[in-house]
């Protein structure tokens, strides 16, 4: 990775908590989300879900539904091109073809004049099934005699969507040298995004050109364009994607949602079609985080050097691979943790089962592996009689040391995060256990966190208008996390113009430059990087013209706040961007504009050092670090856990917008709290038991700590804008282990399965009592 010169921002806009420009329209209700759109002649689309977890489709009868007045189209797989989509494995039809693989899988689609008619039509569709034996557990699905979901793609088990192996050192021989070995099996749930805005798409077809315009709630206009084109077998140029406001996403809107099928309905009817999911359709048809089972063993010497680790991970990807193989990559890549462990053996399976697909969700495989790793390291500390932070400090990777696989850690700031966390949480004193309320037990726990920020391609265009104001266009979607604001601040800081003179365009695949996706803790980092690159080119153009206008060599020029180019050391001599732009437009050179593009380089894997199998490259990222601390109170009677206070310390490299960064951290912490304590999709014989917000509970205002202290450390490094690193996903990654470590500190209960519901915690407490523990 090249090391770029780190120009300092001009003016004071970088690092300021400027309010988001879209906040006003959101608090006044004027903000327009996809479902708020309505166009003349618009039809409403709905989907029919499969009643079976695994069955062959024998026949359809849609005649009754088609005959219902007001129904304009009824589609099944027979009406669609025989195409399968999928980010890694092409395994998903838009509507089930030949067989269904999970309960709720879309089997038919209806467009009708109103939602009620459309739903009534669903009841009239007859599908004949031949039920097949299902499989619901990832490990069971790998048995030789397990029911098979998809046609085999190669020599391995047909239910394995991916199989990864990473070996370093000599793990087999190392155990004998360990004084302490901890071994456990950890389980993590299928958490769901519960973005507050259910998925929605409005598809319009131009009757003359056949061009399809999609307005949709997504994290990525360009992936939607590509996937829809692929699914409908039309050229991408025939599809335009626009993104209204997005009511949350968190990874759930990274791949396609209901865009392709809504487009198919629009094509079939020749009319605009809107499809907005009900909450229950969204929960049963979209995706979740991968549930995981992780067998992990870690050994250390008496003086606290971690020597060996063996890990076997099973990611349950449900009926379709979706982003599963990528998730498995990250899970495997982080299985050693941010520690210098010489002997490591990682095996990871991503497995098909007859359940809802699992895909991207904030953290992307990392929360699962962090839960296992950080709980186990804490147990190791306990067994060694060491302070948990001390043990981590002793083993934490530092700058220049190698990650699992051999990539160098370029900015190893975990030590700084751990030390700061110890200080701000008053760790030593709280470890002494403050007296709890009667019937309660109190404890404090922590987790070290590592993640990557980066991934894949981005581009940006920056243009100076005739009056000196600036247009920035990137194609990146702001899903509510405030990236538009932060990126506008980056551009404003790079050029020294006030935010009021800068316009940041919303994504439109017709006009925006490409961006892969808002996800992977990458937007501020990666898109910010290309913005600073484009701004740098624009600055060169500005200086070239200013040099001619001021009759001074370029080397003497500087950017001045307010959109001016001046002569260094001569406060009185300057020329405004407006004047330069006019000069460029009418006298010499043409419009001032520049584009920059970037693809994050691929994994750096050193196969001399590491035995690597099955790791599919998706581009590397830049390592970022954090430390998270939680203080909890456990109710002895019920097992209920309350998080009293929390600290989240992040090296963000450079703070672009402190309020936005803190908001991300607090929000990520609370999603992590839900993951740790309450959130879990539950199935019975393949049927989701809680596909509602009443059955699946996310934390409310009364369920969160009264204070979540976010601490931002600034160790600028790497290619991000002004040295900034990502933060969005990181804030969720360590929460569950921090909370479970606090539960163990409070009660001795070793929580190996999350969510740590009252019931699970109480059972652990009782088990300890009968063993005479504590």
């Amino acid at each position, binding site marked *: 990775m090249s090391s770029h010169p780190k120009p300092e921002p001009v003016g004071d806009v970088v690092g300021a908590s400027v309010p988001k420009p879209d906040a006003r329209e959101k608090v006044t209700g004027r903000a327009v989300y996809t479902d708020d759109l309505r166009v003349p002649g618009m039809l409403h689309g709905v989907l029919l879900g499969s009643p079976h977890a695994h069955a062959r489709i024998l026949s359809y009868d849609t005649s009754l539904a088609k005959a219902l007045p007001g129904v304009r189209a009824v589609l099944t797989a027979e009406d669609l091109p025989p195409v399968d989509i999928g980010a890694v494995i092409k395994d998903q039809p838009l509507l089930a073809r030949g067989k269904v693989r999970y309960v709720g899988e879309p089997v038919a689609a209806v467009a009708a004049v109103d939602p009620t008619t459309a739903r009534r039509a669903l009841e009239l569709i007859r599908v004949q099934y031949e039920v097949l034996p299902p499989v619901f557990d990832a490990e069971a699905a790998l048995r030789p005699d397990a029911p098979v979901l998809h046609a085999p793609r190669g020599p391995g088990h047909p239910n394995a969507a991916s199989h990864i192996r990473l070996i370093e050192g000599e793990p087999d021989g190392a155990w004998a040298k360990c004084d302490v070995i901890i071994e456990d099996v950890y389980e993590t749930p299928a958490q769901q995004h519960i*973005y507050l805005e259910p998925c929605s798409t409005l598809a319009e077809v131009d009757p003359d050109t056949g061009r399809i315009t999609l307005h949709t709630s997504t994290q990525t206009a360009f992936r939607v364009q590509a996937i829809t084109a692929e699914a409908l077998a039309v050229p991408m140029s025939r599809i335009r994607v626009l993104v209204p406001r997005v009511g949350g996403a968190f990874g759930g809107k990274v791949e396609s949602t209901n865009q392709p099928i809504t487009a198919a309905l629009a094509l079939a009817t020749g009319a605009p079609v809107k499809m907005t999911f009900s909450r229950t359709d969204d929960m049963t048809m979209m995706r979740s985080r991968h549930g995981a089972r992780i067998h992990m063993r870690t050994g250390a010497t008496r003086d606290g050097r971690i020597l060996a680790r063996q890990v076997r991970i099973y990611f349950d990807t449900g009926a379709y691979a979706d982003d599963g193989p990528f998730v498995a990559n990250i899970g495997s890549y982080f299985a050693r943790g941010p520690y210098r462990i010489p002997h490591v053996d990682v095996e990871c399976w991503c497995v098909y089962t007859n359940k809802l697909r699992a895909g991207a969700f904030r953290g992307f495989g990392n929360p699962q592996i962090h839960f296992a790793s950080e709980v186990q390291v804490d147990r190791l500390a306990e067994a060694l009689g060491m302070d948990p932070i001390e043990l981590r400090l002793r083993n934490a990777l530092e700058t220049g040391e190698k990650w699992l696989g051999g990539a160098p850690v370029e900015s190893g700031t975990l030590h700084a995060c751990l030390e700061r966390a110890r200080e701000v949480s008053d760790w030593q004193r709280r470890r002494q256990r403050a007296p709890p309320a009667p019937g309660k037990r109190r404890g404090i726990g922590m987790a070290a966190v590592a993640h990557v920020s980066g991934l894949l391609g981005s581009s940006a265009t920056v243009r100076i208008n005739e009056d000196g104001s600036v247009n920035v266009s990137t194609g990146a979607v702001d899903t509510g996390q405030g990236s538009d604001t932060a990126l506008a601040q980056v551009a404003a800081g790079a050029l020294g113009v006030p935010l009021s003179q800068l316009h940041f365009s919303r994504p439109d695949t017709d006009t925006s430059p490409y961006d892969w996706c808002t996800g992977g803790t990458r937007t501020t980092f990666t898109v910010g990087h290309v913005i600073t690159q484009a701004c740098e080119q624009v600055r060169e153009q500005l200086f070239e013209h200013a040099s001619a206008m001021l009759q001074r060599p370029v080397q003497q020029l500087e950017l001045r706040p307010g959109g001016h180019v001046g002569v260094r050391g001569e406060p009185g001599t300057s020329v405004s961007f407006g004047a330069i732009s006019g000069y460029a437009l009418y006298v010499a050179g043409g419009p001032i504009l520049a584009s920059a593009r970037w693809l994050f380089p691929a994994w750096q894997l050193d196969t001399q050092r590491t035995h690597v199998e099955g790791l599919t490259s998706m581009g590397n990222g830049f390592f970022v670090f954090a430390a998270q601390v939680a203080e909890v109170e456990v109710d002895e009677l019920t097992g209920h856990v309350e998080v009293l206070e929390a600290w989240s310390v992040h090296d963000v490299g450079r703070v672009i917008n402190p309020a936005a960064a803190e908001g991300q951290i607090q929000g990520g912490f609370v999603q992590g709290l839900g993951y740790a304590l309450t959130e879990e999709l539950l199935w019975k014989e393949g049927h989701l038991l809680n596909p509602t917000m009443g059955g699946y509970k996310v934390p409310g205002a009364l369920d969160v700590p009264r204070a979540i202290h976010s601490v931002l450390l600034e160790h600028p490094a790497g290619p991000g804008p002004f040295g900034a690193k990502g933060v969005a996903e990181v804030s969720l990654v360590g929460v569950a282990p921090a909370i479970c470590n606090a539960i163990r500190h409070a009660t001795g209960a070793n929580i190996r399965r999350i969510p740590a519901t009252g019931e699970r915690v109480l059972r652990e407490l009782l088990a300890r009592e009968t063993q005479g523990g504590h």
Partner: protein
Amino acid sequence: MSDKVSLSLCLNGAEHALTVAPERTLLDVLREDVRATGTRRGCDEGNCGACTVLVDGVPVLSCLTLAVRMRGRAITTVEGVQTGAELHPVQRALVRHGAVQCGFCMSGIVLTAKALLERNPSPTAEEVRQALGSNVCRCSGYARVVEAIVSLGGRP
């Protein structure tokens, strides 16, 4: 008594003459008939709070309220909170404190907070959390939302 009912909806101080089927919810009528789309649909079962409106000043869930029941009641939606170009203090505080992320919960939160402050002009953080018990926010972790509302009462 007929399949469709005529009614006059008093919405943000203005009367709207409508004819609606009695099973239609206030949420549906606001969004589809009046085209006041600031009231959001998140779950249709009273568990997310995105559709909160005030009826005679009291927060209720418009997804669980039949529109026909609203005869003679004063309904306030998020569109009626602002006076002219002036934001309501609650709105201003939420913007200033950086409490707004995806914004989908904001209409409900603005109305809940407005009703709370009218009843209790200087609520404690705990009282604010209690009042927000019906409003799910998936982005913010509530910290800045609570902070913004508490700031209006001048209490710590």
